[in-house]
């Protein structure tokens, strides 16, 4: 296809992506280098009829607004935002690590730094939910594959629901069931015989609930992909394995799993990317006190009355770097394949 | 009137050379076959003529127009694709009519021309079917009808028979030959099957690795192959090629000795002869070797034996019978031998 035709076809799409994906990334980087203006203060002399005069500092609202209007980005702060307490917190981290407290205390203190708290949860969510959801999906796929044909359709229908559901709504539904007066929450209190046990009070329960939600909503995707993969397992290989005397488990281990391995890489990649941006469940579960994620930090900076663009920008940049690191193996592999093809 | 002229045409992708410096004049109404193994550049050449592939270098002229920059639709050619390229959402009738429609041929001519084209390829009974409901041979004929309905200057056919079974291939081949005779249009036909090339072509272009190896009538190419590649590609079985050396008009190699060849050549050469030019000798032959296999073909019997490390085929009388391992004496007339340069493979004599 000639260059001219190609670009005529792809231009609208390209413009949309450049304007609303590439440029915002640039904009985020720029924003992260600025912080909000300090308020303009004026000295006001306050004279009272009998008390004489006193001066006091007041916020000059008009001047502040004027400054804000002239330089909407705020004032230049370099990389300052990246290293302050709300982000990488290098000073605090250094102090904690060099102190002579016990390991547990150090962990607890690091956990009190908002960025690390979010980072740790995001990574745990990513690397716990992804493998568990894939294992669940694989198990469902194997089981469904063994069922009679008529039951497959309805089961696939129900299995799709947790995935297709709006993340915020799905997490709200589970949250309501898990609240102390909900069916699951009450049951859990009953099992542990602890009437004060609740999502709000227990970080462990919050984390567990979020991780369970993650597996619940991610499992179906693995299931569908693995199930489709199972349909393409070559019958010849399976049958020759049976003739060679392989047991059920050995057939799964030596025929089915190797056949599905490329699919599994693909599923793992997609799910890692998606789980890294975990956000809605934290809003849905009102979990911010016990668990936050990088995306939630950005959301938190941006919502509310005082929008902290600098802070949100810095977290965004760090998040984007995280995504690129996650993608690195794929990018490197693609690059190598491309090089190979070109030579 | 459509002569097609290719001047120094090349196609490169990065460092890969698809077609290298192709020069050819194709006469009006000629049936030209591009022949070669897959990857030799024959299809690329045709696609450059069609305008589906950009030309890296050189010029292509159709009639008196330089077409390098023209869109396929403006080149006034039609093309039959290997997998036919039928529009699955249209009926046979609509498929054949499509070129007329997009070219804004006046509506009132459509029906008549579609019917004429479909009649020519005997498709009248299938006009309301969709391609999915047709057999391979029928789809093939729809593709042909769609190509001829417009009466273009030239037809391009890209391996049109390769998806058909052997029997259908023979009858469709005959049909294409007949169509060319009736319509009298310049036709360029790409194939890897040397029998198609021999039977259809006015002239054959043999290609390999992007280079033209030989251009000539089918008989020229069969009787005087320009190099060992053409010699081994044309004919069934392929020409026997034996490495050896020549001295004073005598070719020798392990198990073979042929006298009376040209005195001009000297030193290491490759000798070639065709299976049907050899015969069994009564007393002493040019080759004496044990038989490796005997294959009964019905109209002839094929003997093979090992000579100088190569398996050599000899076509003998259909009644001949022998056991594997028996000694056979084979006579090869010097006049039937071809000599090729041992390193370049180019024809010496």
């Amino acid at each position, binding site marked *: 296809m000639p260059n001219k*035709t190609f670009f005529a076809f792809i231009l609208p799409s390209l413009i949309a992506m450049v304007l609303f994906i590439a440029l915002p990334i640039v904009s985020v980087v720029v924003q992260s280098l600025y912080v909000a203006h300090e308020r303009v203060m004026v000295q006001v002399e306050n004279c009272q009829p009998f008390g004489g005069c006193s001066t006091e500092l007041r916020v000059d609202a008009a001047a502040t607004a004027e400054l804000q209007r002239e330089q909407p980005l705020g004032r230049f702060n370099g990389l300052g935002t990246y290293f302050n307490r709300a982000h990488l917190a290098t000073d605090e981290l250094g102090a904690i690590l060099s102190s002579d407290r016990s390991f547990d205390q150090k962990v607890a203190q690091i956990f009190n730094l908002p960025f690390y708290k979010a980072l740790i949860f995001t990574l745990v969510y990513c690397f716990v939910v992804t493998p568990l959801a894939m294992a669940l999906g694989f198990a469902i796929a194997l089981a469904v594959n063994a069922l009679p044909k008529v039951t497959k359709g309805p089961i696939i229908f129900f299995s799709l629901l947790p995935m297709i559901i709006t993340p915020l709504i799905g997490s709200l539904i589970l949250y309501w069931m898990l609240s102390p007066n909900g069916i699951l929450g009450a049951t859990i209190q009953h099992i542990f015989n602890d009437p004060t046990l609740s999502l709000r009070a227990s970080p462990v329960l919050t984390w567990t609930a979020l991780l369970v939600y993650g597996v619940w909503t991610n499992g179906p995707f693995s299931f569908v992909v693995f199930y489709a993969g199972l349909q393409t397992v070559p019958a010849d290989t399976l049958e020759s394995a049976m003739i060679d005397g392989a047991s059920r488990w050995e057939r799964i281990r030596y025929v089915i799993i190797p056949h599905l391995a490329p699919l599994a890489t693909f599923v793992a990649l997609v799910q890692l990317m998606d789980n890294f941006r975990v956000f809605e469940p934290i*809003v849905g579960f009102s979990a911010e006190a016990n668990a936050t994620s990088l995306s939630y930090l950005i959301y938190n900076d*941006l919502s509310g009355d005082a929008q902290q663009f600098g802070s949100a920008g810095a977290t965004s940049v760090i998040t984007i770097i995280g995504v690129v690191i996650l993608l690195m193996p794929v990018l490197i592999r693609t690059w190598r394949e491309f090089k190979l093809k070109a030579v | 009137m459509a002569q097609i002229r290719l001047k120094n045409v090349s196609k490169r992708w990065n460092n890969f050379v698809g077609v290298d410096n192709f020069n050819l004049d194709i006469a009006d109404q000629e049936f030209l076959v591009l022949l070669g193994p897959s990857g030799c550049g024959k299809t690329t050449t045709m696609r450059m003529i069609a305008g589906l592939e950009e030309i890296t270098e050189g010029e292509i002229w159709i009639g008196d127009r330089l077409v390098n920059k023209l869109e396929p639709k403006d080149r006034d050619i039609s093309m039959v694709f290997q997998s036919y*390229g039928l*529009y699955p959402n249209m009926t046979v009738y609509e498929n054949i009519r499509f070129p007329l429609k997009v070219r804004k041929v006046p509506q009132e001519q459509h029906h008549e021309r579609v019917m004429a084209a479909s009649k020519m390829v005997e498709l009248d009974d299938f006009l309301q079917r969709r391609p999915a409901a047709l057999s391979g041979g029928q789809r093939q004929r729809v593709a042909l009808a769609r190509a001829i309905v417009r009466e273009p200057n030239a037809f391009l056919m890209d391996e049109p028979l390769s998806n058909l079974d052997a029997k259908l291939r023979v009858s469709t081949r005959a049909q294409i030959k007949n169509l060319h005779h009736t319509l009298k249009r310049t036709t360029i036909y790409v194939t890897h099957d040397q029998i198609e090339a021999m039977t259809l072509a006015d002239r054959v272009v043999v290609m390999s690795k992007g280079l033209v190896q030989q251009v000539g009538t089918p008989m020229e190419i069969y009787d005087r192959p320009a190099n060992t590649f053409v010699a081994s590609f044309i004919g069934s079985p392929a020409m026997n090629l034996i490495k050896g050396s020549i001295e004073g008009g005598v070719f020798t190699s392990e198990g073979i000795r042929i006298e009376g060849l040209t005195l001009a050549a000297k030193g290491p050469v490759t000798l070639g002869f065709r299976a049907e030019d050899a015969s069994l000798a009564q007393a002493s032959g040019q080759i004496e070797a044990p038989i490796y296999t005997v294959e009964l073909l019905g109209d002839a019997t094929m003997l093979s034996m090992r000579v100088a490390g190569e398996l050599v085929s000899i076509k003998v009388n259909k009644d001949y019978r022998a056991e594997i391992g028996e000694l056979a004496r084979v006579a090869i007339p010097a006049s039937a031998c071809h000599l090729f340069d041992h390193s370049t493979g180019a024809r010496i004599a």
Partner: protein
Amino acid sequence: MSDAVAQKRPLALNAIIYGFIVLWVILAAVPFFWTVWGSFKVEADFFSRESWWNAIFGTSTTRQTGNAFTGAGYYGAWVLRDFWRAAGNTIIVTVCVTVISLTLGTLGGYALARSGRNYAFWILIAALVFRAMPHITLVSGYLLPFFQLNIWGVLPTSIIVLVAINQPFTLWMLHSFFLSIPKDLDESAMVDGCTRFQAFRLVIMPVMWPGVVTTGLFSFLLGYNDFAVTAMLLSAENQTMVPKISSFLGSIQETGNVMYAVAAVVSATVPLFILVLFFQRQIVSGLTAGAVKG
């Protein structure tokens, strides 16, 4: 094959398989049915202090309203709290996002599938990286420029942003669908007298419908399920359903009308149910064949 194997399967294994599937279906489906059922109760039943059986039998609901079922939550959400407006906005946003995404995506995906050049490959790789960007990081890049340009808060802005965010995925998916259509088809069309665009419109698109429908479903889901973009970029009166529900939560929990939110949640879930019911096959094929997830 599976039938022959099924007969030889030991009973214990069968029991495990069936037990596991039943457990999974319960886990997958019951939360939805529980919430749908509970949305017709009063809060004292849905969140019952005494026993969760109340939620099933509607003990308090009967006591308060005289009937085991009540539509009070729906009335509150849709009528008193203007949820209909949010539903209307959602329809506008999802329809526009789907249509525009598909228009841009088919054109671009077609070009990518038919160009063998290096830059097409690099555009696809860039799209892959873009697709991995958390939406909220992009949102933080939008806000300030949008405030400055004075286009914050309105539906068209959100629609265009969602279209753009959706493009990488749409391009990948449609690109792989276009790859499955033989090149011969466009080439015959062009030899037959079409321009590239005519070949695309008259010959390729008519056989592309399955791919377009499948991709459209995922575009629809993206627009419908989005929270990050719509919550941050829409003013309160322009909100779509999902951010509306989230803003419900803050204000409603104080006044004790959680049931409005429950009713709204159920209302927003029903279209998804219907979607899966009718398009299950396309969704499954999209997840697997498209090789990308929305």
